[in-house]
């Protein structure tokens, strides 16, 4: 197979990635109010990384993002567990959430909500899991 350059894609990807990641972060934070949430946000982020993988290759991306995705999964789980188990410290049932509303400019209504932290755990797990799967299979091929 002849080598081809990928100049157009590689150039465009820089902007597009920004878009996609922004969107995924948005969709993650907005989850409590609009459709979305940690799960779908995580998948979108993973999508962005996949786009990177397609454009470049596993090695390059590893240099770019030196993340062990299995550890990321574990961290995500720790986040979720930690948030839920935090309520044990206050002697209320497991997973009890607390919240307070904050209005931020630009992003609109954002609540400081322990549920968001929980959702962040979900987010990390989903990114970690999806990337583990894709990377593992990709490396095997």
């Amino acid at each position, binding site marked *: 197979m002849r080598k081809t350059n990928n100049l157009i894609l590689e150039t*465009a990807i820089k902007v597009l990635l920004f878009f996609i990641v922004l*969107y995924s972060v*948005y969709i993650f934070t907005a989850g409590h109010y609009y459709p979305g949430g940690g799960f779908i946000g995580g998948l979108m982020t993973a999508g962005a990384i996949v786009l990177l993988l397609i454009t470049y290759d596993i090695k390059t991306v590893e240099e770019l993002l030196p993340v062990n995705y299995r550890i990321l999964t574990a961290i995500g789980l720790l986040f979720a567990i930690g948030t839920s188990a935090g309520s044990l410290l206050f002697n209320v049932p497991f997973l009890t959430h607390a919240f307070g509303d904050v209005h931020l400019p630009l992003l609109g209504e954002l609540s400081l909500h322990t549920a968001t932290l929980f959702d962040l755990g979900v987010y990390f797990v989903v990114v970690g899991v999806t990337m583990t799967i894709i990377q593992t299979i990709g490396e095997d091929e």
Partner: protein
Amino acid sequence: MSVIIDFFIGFFILVGSLFCLIATIGVIRLPDVYTRNHAASKAATLGVMSILLGTFLYFYALEGHFNSRLILGIVFLFMTSPISGHLINRAAYNSGVKLWDKSVRDDLKEYNKKVLEKSSVD
């Protein structure tokens, strides 16, 4: 005021969908990959962008809902569809899909040949 808005909304949407339709006709009728791709990536994208614009207007005007994602979507589509069109075409070409037999020019072929000769000389 609202009539005008309504008109614009309707216009964008209808025109957009017509574009889509036409693009499809193109995809069906045109003779080879490259021409079909042309129809799809240009016309369809324009059509969809127009529809999105109409939708954006609809929600903005009738409900006062400024939806940033729609704008984002329009921009995104605007950016990606040429790239994807390009990629597919190049892939098709490189994987050896034949041009329409009535095609008149194939610059890339000549270029490739040149490169090939050059590399063989080296």
